[in-house]
């Protein structure tokens, strides 16, 4: 086996998708915070989007599975809050993938104290902001529910955090 580099590990991690949003890799989601290589052993540090995210164990297992498939003999996945996740950690590529998936991407910046940005989220279908918030909570911890008055359809947003 050729020698491991962090760049190779990152390229393999591109294969691991968010179990609830299969168009988004964990890298684009921004939950991988460090990769360490120590001989044959690879240590991945990750941080959850929400502390209570029930998909966390599944993500950890999938990271191990993918790296094992590529021949890494020993994988350790560590959860840490050292560098906590925020929605600004989602890459631009990730935000576009969310939008194409029908989920409004979170706006950038530390803005959640500004309620109007939650109230008039751009609709992922028509891009208009003639929308209303229907619920701060949604089908998963990281989504809120909105309604587009132009499309007359409900949509979800990946919450800014």
């Amino acid at each position, binding site marked *: 086996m050729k020698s491991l580099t962090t760049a190779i590990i990152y390229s393999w991690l591109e294969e691991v998708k968010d179990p609830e949003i299969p168009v988004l890799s964990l890298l684009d989601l921004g939950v991988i915070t460090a990769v360490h290589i120590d001989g044959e052993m690879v240590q991945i540090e990750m941080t959850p989007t*929400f*502390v*209570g*995210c*029930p998909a966390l164990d599944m993500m950890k297992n999938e990271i191990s599975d993918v790296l094992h498939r590529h021949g890494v003999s020993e994988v350790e996945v560590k959860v*840490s*809050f*050292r560098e*906590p*996740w*925020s929605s600004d950690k989602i890459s631009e590529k990730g935000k576009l993938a969310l939008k194409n998936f029908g989920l409004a991407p979170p706006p950038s910046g530390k803005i*959640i*104290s500004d*309620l109007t940005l*939650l109230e008039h989220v751009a609709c992922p279908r028509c891009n208009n902001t003639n929308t209303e918030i*229907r*619920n*701060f*909570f*949604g*089908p998963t*911890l990281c989504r*809120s*529910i909105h309604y587009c008055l132009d499309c007359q359809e409900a949509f979800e947003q990946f*919450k800014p*955090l």
Partner: protein
Amino acid sequence: MNEVIKELLYKIADDQLILGHRNSEWTGFGPLLEEDIAFSSMAQDKVGQSLALYQILNELGEQPPDTVAFMRHAERFHNCILTELPNGEYDFSLVRHFLFDTAEFIRFDMLRDSSFQPLAELAHKIHGELRYHILHANTWIKQLGSATKESISRLQVSLDDALPYAMGIFEESPYEQELIAEGIFGGEQMLKERWMTTIEATIHHTNLHLPAWNSIVPVLGGRMGKHSVHLQPLLDEMSEVFRIDPTAEW
């Protein structure tokens, strides 16, 4: 110093776990689908946050999170009594959510500056999540607190009922001075003062009224393991499946 930190972590984690369980009892019973989803999501957040706090305790030498959550009797829990009270009707659950989560939001804000690094890091994260709980509580308190005669009077009755228990959130720890001196936590007194100002500001936007703070007689005891009759039945139900086979792999 470990005992001081453990005592603080236990009371915060137990608050999150017990109120998280109560919130989960709204799953399938919410007055609107949106509220069903909201209380269920807040339950998931709170139980998940309690797990992260129990994990820190585990690293400090305490039993694993499942053991701690499911195998202790009521007198070993340090949650405030407010969190264990039955849900009652929606108005009571909403008022409790407002009073408790406002305190919790400020508590985690203060803990972001904790000298105990693992807690400071986690607090930063949890504080961000609780913003949504606060938005939810404030939206409904403002809306229903100035809507119809019935909604106002229901919230007022629940507010009057809940306030003595809410004051129990701030029951002081035996280690209060150490916590403050070591920069671990700014203390219950500071938390209570910030909480009172915040509660007043929101209630001011409604037709509800707050009694004079010094007229409220706090219901204490929860932090010391002296609970109401409601906690043990909650724990029995919560741990029913776990206790069938504590060694089972899930």
